[in-house]
């Protein structure tokens, strides 16, 4: 049945959206900071991978071994030396500084790489698929993306619930002052949160670049999908974010099937519907 395929594709797309969203969610959870440039960093990672692939002539997925650690470092430095200075009560500075960063990153990429669309070539991976019955086809690439999302979320859960750092993240998220009373170095912990966030962004960026054409201007739309996934899923819940991504992906998929011009709109409308009916999201963390 065609609809089953549409739903499957949408759900798999949700994996990519979850990857976009998880980093955003982590930063907000630990320090109540939303990085407006988040989507632009995803695109930055894609271009970074492009350069690495061109220079070293390696497979895009392999480029992650360089891009992810590099973005981790970028995230740490960004938070430690820039964004930490915007934190402290007033909502305007973090918002406006990250907004400024968004414009800077987009236009720097435009200057360096021009507005031409690019794509990372991943060979057979891009089109290979597994046939599941007569009407369902599970593409290798979407499948890998979805599996990656699950692995990333599992690893993040492990970090948050089984390590001292994760404890520090959760404690700081609960009560930053009291966390300091127990030895948590806020500035460092915040920087680590952003570092991890951008490492995940790197993964998302590379996968995005293999999957679709990209150019410097597509960042804001990725931010919006990440944000919609978080809100639909519910604040404070990582698995909820995956659910949110899936719902968003399915909504877009269904919209596209009805009329190609309705794809994005369907996603937005699904998001607004959830916002109106269940403002706290569909699976919010109960302890809030």
């Amino acid at each position, binding site marked *: 049945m065609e609809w089953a395929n549409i739903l499957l594709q949408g759900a798999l797309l949700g994996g990519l959206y979850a990857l976009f969203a998880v980093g955003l969610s982590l930063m907000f959870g630990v320090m109540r900071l939303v990085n407006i440039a988040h989507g632009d960093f995803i695109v930055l990672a894609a271009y970074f991978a492009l350069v690495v692939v061109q220079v070293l002539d390696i497979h895009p997925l392999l480029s992650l071994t360089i891009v992810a650690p590099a973005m981790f470092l970028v995230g740490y430095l960004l938070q430690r030396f820039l964004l930490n200075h915007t934190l402290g009560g007033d909502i305007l500075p973090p918002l406006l500084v990250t907004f400024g960063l968004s414009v800077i990153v*987009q236009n720097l990429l435009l200057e360096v790489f021009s507005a031409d669309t690019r794509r990372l070539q991943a060979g057979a991976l891009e089109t290979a698929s597994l046939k599941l019955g007569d009407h369902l086809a599970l593409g290798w690439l979407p499948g890998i993306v979805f599996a990656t999302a699950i692995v990333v979320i599992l690893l993040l859960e492990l970090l948050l619930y089984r390590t001292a750092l994760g404890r520090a993240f959760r404690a700081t998220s609960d009560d930053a002052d009291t966390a300091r009373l127990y030895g948590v170095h806020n500035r460092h912990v915040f920087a680590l949160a952003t570092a991890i966030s951008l490492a995940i962004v790197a993964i998302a960026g590379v996968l995005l670049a293999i999957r679709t054409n990209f150019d410097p201007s597509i960042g804001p739309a990725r931010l919006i999908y990440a*944000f919609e996934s978080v*809100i639909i899923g519910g604040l404070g819940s990582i698995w909820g974010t995956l659910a949110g991504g899936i719902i968003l992906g399915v909504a877009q998929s269904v919209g596209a099937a009805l009329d190609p011009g309705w794809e994005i709109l369907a996603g937005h409308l699904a998001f607004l519907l959830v916002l109106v009916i269940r*403002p706290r999201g569909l699976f919010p963390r109960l302890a809030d």
Partner: protein
Amino acid sequence: MSAPPFRVERSTKASRIGAAFLALAVAVLLTLPSWGTSAQMRLVIEVSYYLALAQAWNLLAGYAGLVSVGQQAYVGLGGYAFFALTVLLQLPPLLALLLAGVAAAAIALPTAFIVFRLRGAYFAICTWVVAEVFRLLLAQVTPLGGGTGMSLPVSIVRAFGDSKVARDLVLYYLCLTIGIGAVLLVFFWLRSRQGLALTAIRDSEAAAASVGVDNRRTKLAVYLIAALIAGLVGAVVFVQKLRISPDAAFSVGDWTVYVIFITVIGGIGSIEGPIIGTVVFFTLRALLADYGAWYLILLGATAVIVMLLAPGGAWGLVQRHLDLQVFPVQRRIQLRTAAGDDV
């Protein structure tokens, strides 16, 4: 019954000087068409509507704490409302202009119901989503040009004046009115009791609520005023451009990015700030027009640096060193001594 021991004063010597200076500037602008070039007139038109948008955004973000990156929604809605009212309903253009602003504010009301469910940065992104929704919806409306947009019919263009010179003149004064009008609207609103409530909210929401300010209603009022201004601007802009399309009408770059930079660099939280910011912005644009993306990179970097080092913007710096205030929205208490003199 003796007189109360204090008197509430509004203006100061500095503000009176500043007001005189501004009045002079306005007088100059009013006479510009008779001695200036058409390029200068176009510049003033652009300055006027960016000033209006900046005042509105400042009211939202600087006073009400509502950082919206989706005001392009109302610019676009105002533009499309004008086209719809004149082309589809055949209303007279000047009336349609006014109604376009009202229409934008009217749509802002149910929109507020949705976006106010979120706060801070999530509120901001949600306003962006809403703008995108309007853009995508209007791209589906074929009577208004669909995805490619439509041109303003000649008959309506003519209604603004028979010759290009006449039309430019009408548009000039319309935009000037909107620009100055927005400044005055914000100024008088802030001086009112509603405005006092808003300033209280800006300083401390919790404190404001504790003295009985209805935060929600005040913020809603601000959101509607900002939409009204944006709608009026949208209507006029697309009359001037003679053509509207979803991408142009709801462009984040044109209607939000520049406005935010203007307000941040000029100074958030004051009426003078956006005025200065607009001047700085257009000066920079004139100087750096040839540098494409670098111009935006510089703007972005300047905004970041300003937010980190001088969050009050250019006007904030001025205020720190000289206690100036051109637009007296403060109320100063003058104490009376026993002898009846003012202290």
